């Protein structure tokens, strides 16, 4: 386990700038989640740290020592790819044992068997150990690919949307399992996801990337409650933050062009008139789709609300977020 720091990382693929001057410190034992849409540079960041690609400029340090010139193997990392990339000529057992069989490690056979059995148990693939990797379902393959990273204790785990191909139940189970591994081993994680629940529940820190730039880095709470821009504010929150013209509810602070309303920023029962267009009952929460003049707003209400489509209510903003012309907080 180690601290990993990125200093001024820049990387282009052809004319496409994938990362621009990214600096970030992943503290020892942290669970850092990278957020951002496709093409923001999340996977590039992982590949640079893993050593699969070389940065055009900048430095990568693991435990204080520069590793930019090292091969992937020398960096002592473990990466889980979005596509499972299992070895088709090996059994599940051999796939899992692969990272332990490296001649430099020289693990005794009994140790390997024990460790592989342990990881297979955690990921619930013990009954498939003797199958060929090609005979598994997508979810099973992804579990093997996670397991292959977990058999070792590398200095950092790099995971690229590892749970995205799993069904909801397994995803929830493995989320807890990864969190437990993080807590018990004190392992350092850098984790890419699109999933808001994964980001909020697993992360100790969240980094938000926008077109190759790191625009904010902080705890999930900071990112959620105190986003630096409308872009960051849109990354987290279900339903998403409502962005309206600043004067939608009346006079706005100087410089503000947009008002950002998360569901908890919408106070129902006073203020401007609005019409309920749709009531979406999700079980644990109920969403209200509202129209207020030309604007549409989505908010949350009491799960057992009696409101129905067509109802007239009034709403007003409560401690909203304000953004200027370039989308930054005012």
């Amino acid at each position, binding site marked *: 386990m180690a601290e990993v720091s990125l200093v001024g990382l820049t990387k282009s693929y052809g004319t496409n700038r994938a990362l621009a001057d990214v600096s970030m410190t992943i503290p020892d034992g942290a669970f850092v989640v990278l957020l951002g849409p496709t093409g923001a540079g999340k996977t590039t960041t992982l590949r640079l740290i893993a050593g699969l690609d070389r940065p055009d400029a900048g430095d990568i340090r693991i435990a204080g020592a520069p590793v930019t010139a090292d091969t*992937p193997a020398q960096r002592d990392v473990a990466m889980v790819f979005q596509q499972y990339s299992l070895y088709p000529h090996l059994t599940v057992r051999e796939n899992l044992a692969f990272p332990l069989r490296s001649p430099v*490690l020289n693990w005794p056979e009994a140790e390997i068997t024990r460790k592989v059995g342990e990881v297979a148990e955690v990921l619930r693939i013990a009954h498939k150990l003797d199958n060929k990797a090609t005979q598994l379902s997508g979810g099973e393959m992804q579990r093997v690919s996670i397991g292959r990273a977990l058999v*070792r204790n590398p200095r950092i785990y790099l995971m690229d949307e590892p749970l995205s191909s799993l069904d909801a139940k397994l995803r929830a189970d493995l989320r807890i399992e990864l969190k437990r591994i993080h807590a018990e081993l004190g392992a350092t994680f850098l984790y890419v996801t699109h999933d808001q629940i994964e980001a909020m529940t697993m992360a100790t820190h969240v980094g938000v990337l926008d077109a190759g730039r790191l625009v904010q880095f902080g705890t999930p709470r900071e990112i959620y409650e105190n986003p630096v821009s409308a872009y960051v504010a849109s990354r987290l929150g279900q339903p998403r933050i409502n962005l309206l013209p600043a004067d939608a509810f009346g006079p706005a602070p100087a410089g503000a062009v947009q008002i950002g309303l998360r569901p908890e920023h919408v106070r129902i029962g006073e203020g401007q008139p609005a019409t309920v267009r749709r009531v979406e009952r999700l079980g644990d929460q109920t969403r209200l789709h509202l129209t207020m003049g030309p604007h549409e707003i989505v908010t949350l209400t009491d799960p057992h609300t009696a409101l129905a489509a067509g109802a007239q209510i009034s709403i007003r903003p409560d401690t909203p977020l304000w953004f200027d012309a370039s989308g930054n907080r005012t």
Partner: protein
Amino acid sequence: MFDPLTAEEWRAVALSLRVSFWATAVSLPLGILVAYALARWRFWGREVLNGLVHLPLILPPVVTGYLLLVTFGRRGSVGAYLDQWFGIVFAFRWTGAALAAAIMAFPLMVRAIRLAIEAVDPRLEQAASTLGAGRVWVFATVTLPLILPGILAGAILAFAKAMGEFGATITFVSNIPGQTQTLPSAIYAALQVPGGETQALRLVLVSITVAMAALLVSEWVSRKVAKRISGA
């Protein structure tokens, strides 16, 4: 007792097998290296190397044989050096026949292996390297097992090509019975003698038998290997 071939004809068959075996065995490691370099590495002169490897396929075999004679003959630039310092002589020896066969077969071998390497998903090798495996270990445990069918196909193709090589061989090492007279050379020689057709026919039958046997064995082996890899 029925003996289909004379002692001299047996020698030609044995020599052909020996030449083809050594031509294949010695060039195989180099073939794998060159195929890997062409498939995976981007380096200056890659196209030139690719062209050089394929040259024997396109040149008339006589030209290749002549170039070998000029280079590896006793007075050739490389040949004289090898003779003087290492006592290695290719000209008019069976080793020369093996060298000619190896060079003629090399493009086919490299092609087959290169296609197999290009078919391996590079993400598998990347995954292995991010799981702590060094370059050599990745090649030995991931790439090599996956390209084994291609290597096998390349080796068998090269062996078959070596068995049939004629033009470059006869130009480089001539047609000395017992020394450099391979099966094709022996058939050619028999056809030059009036009334040699029956002898030629016997050798042709041997040639067909050897080729058929090689083909059957290769089919059988590649089926076994493919089955082991796909895990079906």
